[in-house]
């Protein structure tokens, strides 16, 4: 029943969105090649599905996203687990992190393109940067917040490194680390598109630029919708994984 109600909410919400779009299309005086209707965007979507362009660009983008996001999360969690346990060292690293953190990943883009040229790497690097700081900082905070009794018990039962990190520190800190990983997913997906718009000749972000260059606003809007839908799916998938792990570790 609950699921049915939330499904009803989704349907109404999306219907309203499409209705507003259609309304704007009807009243606007723009050329319909520049401001297409929902129907035209849908047709463009179908066209892209059939000519295989969509699948190709999605798989290119997903590969970049997976490479950037997974390597970033892995590096940030490992580094965070270490730094969280050595507060003396973190004191010296934190100021530099605080300086780098507020810089938008987009700001790095020209620099990265200069260094690596155009292709997969700029988009991957951008996602890496976007996900790295939230995950690193939430991991460090999570490790610092661990209930000291877990460490006391571990010491008493003779658990030493590296088992201490893997068997005690990580699971104890996991709920808070998962929060950071989750937040970073949304940010990373946002910056993938930005990265591909500037530093790539393929992928969903490039498809937007390409559509603009060819004055195909219908393709452009269809691509935007696809980007939104994939974002939701990624979020849902991550929630599912999180739930599995928490359940396996005796959480709620």
């Amino acid at each position: 029943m609950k699921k049915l109600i939330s499904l009803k909410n989704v349907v109404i919400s999306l219907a309203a969105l499409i209705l507003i779009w259609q309304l704007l299309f009807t009243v606007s005086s723009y050329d319909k090649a520049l401001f297409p209707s929902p129907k035209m965007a849908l047709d463009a979507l179908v066209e892209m599905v059939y000519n295989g362009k969509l699948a190709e660009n999605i798989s290119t983008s997903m590969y970049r996203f997976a490479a950037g996001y997974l390597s970033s999360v892995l590096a940030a969690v490992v580094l965070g687990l270490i730094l969280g346990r050595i507060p003396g060292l973190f004191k010296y690293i934190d100021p530099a992190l605080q300086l780098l953190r507020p810089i938008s990943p987009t700001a790095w883009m020209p620099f990265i393109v200069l260094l690596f040229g155009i292709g997969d790497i700029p988009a991957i690097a951008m996602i890496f940067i976007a996900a790295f700081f939230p995950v690193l900082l939430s991991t460090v905070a999570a490790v610092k917040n661990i209930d000291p009794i877990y460490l006391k018990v571990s010491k008493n039962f003779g658990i030493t490194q590296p088992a201490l990190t893997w068997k005690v520190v990580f699971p104890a800190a996991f709920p808070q680390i998962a929060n950071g990983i989750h937040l970073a997913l949304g940010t990373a997906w946002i910056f993938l598109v930005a990265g591909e718009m500037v530093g790539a000749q393929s992928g969903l972000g490039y498809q937007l630029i390409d559509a603009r260059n060819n004055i195909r606003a219908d393709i452009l809007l269809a691509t935007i919708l696809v980007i939104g839908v994939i974002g939701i799916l990624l979020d849902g998938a991550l929630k599912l994984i999180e739930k599995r792990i928490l359940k396996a570790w005796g959480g709620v």
Partner: protein
Amino acid sequence: MYIEVKDACKKYVQDGKEFNALDNVSLDIDKGEFICLLGPSGCGKSTLLNTLAGFEKLNSGSVKIDGKEVKEPSVRNITIFQNYGLLPWRNVRKNIELGLDARKVPKAQRDELCAKYLKLVGLEGYEKRYPRQLSGGQQQRVSIARGLAADPDIIFLDEPFGALDAITRMKLQEDILKISREEKKTMIFVTHDIEEAVYLSDRIVVMMADPGRIKSIVKVPLGSHRDRTNEDFLYVRDKIFELFNMKAEDYIEYNI
């Protein structure tokens, strides 16, 4: 002596003020004894226990177990905490395995041992439960089973039943007494509950606060079967009550 505390001194600074948690405390404990450290908060009983367990260091004086200076926690001496210290992401079985890991028990024997210790604390068949699915009393039982599974020489208990309701507490007191007789472990038990101390101890170390010190050591000659309503039990209990009301600073060794 098996456990020897000599001239132990420990100072803390709290809110800019220095206070003496332990002031020249000396104490000897025999192997197999059940000792309660009894006193009001601030008397240094938990500090003394933490020092014996190797979690804290003294400013001066020495703590020796079996002739060796205590420098760090050891799997030979397991501590049971008031808030249980179970790892919530591990089920009951995996928590108890911490104790078996400490002993390097081979995989083949683990099922049997795990079942044995769970039976000992009255939780047969709870292997797959997670700590949050258990009541406070059950969690403390798991913690005791985990401690016993490590087969330690000494078990330290830091107000282990302090967070439990009165009925559960009495049941656990009975069980820990029975376990201490059967398993023949040296037990050192911190409490502020006089009746609990009389019920459990071979000797009660009565401590006073500010500075933290031992006021007297009371032998409890009640044998292994104890009855809370028995006349002798009440007599010992009243003696301890008197001790806390007394103003005299002198050290008294009671032999009842």
